[in-house]
């Protein structure tokens, strides 16, 4: 028997080759240390993509390591961190050293840029960011301007909307029809998926359609271009219901302070010296720790 999902099922390597080029505009939906598109980010780094533009509401470890590896030259984001495990060491450094063009936003402003893009609008009005230094910078860059409500004359920030070339999403599951299931908080996943031209979803597992609940479909099959089977694909960040984050690994990453040699060593050791994300996992995490992270996440559901 063949399943619909099979026509879209591919290795991370193939998906990134097919849908991400040098200069592509990428959207991601991780949030700090949860649900990072880590398997896909590793592959981008492994394929040495360059001059990427990344847009995301809250910056995460996947963004940080992509910036640290030199893959990115522009970021639209709404701030970000590794929660209290550390700051976005490479992003912060790249901003201060002007190695990337960083367009800073509030979380909701980023969401609205995606929502507007999903809706096919060329601009969206928001009350956020008024009188902030963020909006001053965005106005200088032509990404924002002031607009007045034609009915009340109230002042708004008008934002250009976003239609990234490709969205990278990490989800809990796909079903055999190719529908995607997202459990736990949803962040801005829906808006990103509909704003982007192509959508790559890495998943922990593929479940039979008969075992899936139709009312829980979060991304319908018709909106997905590639499904990548990537168990533990958000590691070392966490995934609701599936595994807890690896505090030790993330802390040690943050401890690199984005010193060039240290980050380069991290990239070599964990990403470019292996051929696949599976190899990275094998090399990095013991079965003992893996089971602990899984068990803890299940308990916290």
């Amino acid at each position, binding site marked *: 028997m063949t399943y619909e999902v099979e026509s879209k099922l591919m290795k991370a390597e193939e998906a990134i080759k097919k849908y991400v080029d040098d200069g592509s505009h990428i959207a991601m939906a991780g949030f700090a240390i949860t649900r990072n598109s880590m398997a896909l980010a590793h592959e981008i780094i492994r394929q040495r993509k360059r001059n990427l533009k990344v847009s995301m509401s809250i910056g995460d470890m996947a963004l940080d390591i992509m910036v640290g590896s030199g893959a990115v030259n522009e970021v639209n984001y709404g701030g970000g961190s590794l929660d209290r495990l550390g*700051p976005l060491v490479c992003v912060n450094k790249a901003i201060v050293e002007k190695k990337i063009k960083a367009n800073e936003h509030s979380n909701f402003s980023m969401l609205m840029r995606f929502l507007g893009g999903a809706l096919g609008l060329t601009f969206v009005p928001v009350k956020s960011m*008024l009188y902030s230094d963020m909006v001053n910078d965005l106005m200088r860059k032509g990404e924002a301007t002031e607009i007045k409500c034609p009915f009340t004359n109230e002042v708004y920030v008008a934002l250009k909307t976003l239609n990234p070339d490709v969205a990278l999403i990490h989800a809990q599951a796909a079903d055999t029809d190719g529908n995607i299931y997202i459990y736990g908080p949803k962040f*801005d996943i829906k808006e990103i998926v509909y704003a982007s031209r192509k959508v790559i979803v890495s998943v922990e597992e593929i479940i039979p359609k008969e075992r899936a609940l139709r009312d829980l479909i979060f991304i319908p099959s018709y909106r997905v271009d590639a499904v990548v089977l990537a168990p533990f694909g958000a590691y070392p960040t966490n995934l609701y219901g599936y595994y807890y984050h690896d505090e030790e690994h993330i802390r040690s990453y943050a401890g690199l302070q984005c010193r060039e040699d240290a980050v380069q060593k991290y990239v070599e050791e964990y990403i470019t010296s292996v051929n696949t994300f599976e190899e990275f996992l094998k090399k990095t995490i013991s079965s003992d720790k893996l089971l602990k992270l899984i068990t803890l996440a299940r308990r916290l559901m």
Partner: protein
Amino acid sequence: MKYSKEELMVVTGAREIKDYDKVLVGIGLPMACAILAKLTHAPHSVIFFENGVVDPKSTDYGVGLADLKAWSGASYYTGTLEVMGYMLHGGKFDVGFVGVLEVDMYGNVNSTIVEVNGKPRHFTGSGGGNDIVSLARKIIVITRHEKRKIKEKVFYVTSPGYIGGRDRREVGLRGGDIVVITDMAVLKFNKNKGKMDVVSIHPGIKIEEVINNTGFPLEIPSDVPTTPEPTEHELKVLREKVPATLYSKSL
């Protein structure tokens, strides 16, 4: 009953929350305030994270909003559109807490970039911070009381306060009053003075201490109110039911 300065801050923050309030928080002291309020005078208040987690009930909130420990026992999971859009931008949050690197005499908040030894150092950025300050009915800033944190002018305006000392609504902002709770005092905007002003000083803190640790001139009358002390009940609930990791040593 004796209490720590962090305990006083949590209790003071909790008292800003009324019953039935919708409250937008981050992990740390703000979450402690929200939990304490809910367990004392505001049982029907509802706690939200900007990423879509509603009313978690955990015993350990871990390292931040993205920690699965912080989500445990949530009553509802939704997304940014519903929390930051329909609720916050839609004007439905009564209270929002924000973390800051610096806050200035106009209530402007910086959570993006500061100068350290004359060199710029970039931190978290806005996240939902700017949205909260721009849009919540009441904004609570909790910070250590230091000259380098409570300044005449922030290095970078992540979130606008009282622009040029004017009423926030007048200039088109929708966010309400900003309340700054420090380990020494409570500050609010004073319309007549056109800047942030001390409304109460914590028990045991001297006026001079506050003045000396504030980065802009303050005129504090000698009869300035003292911040009300925690009640025994508040302290009991706080110590028994609110995870200490949220607030102790968190300044």
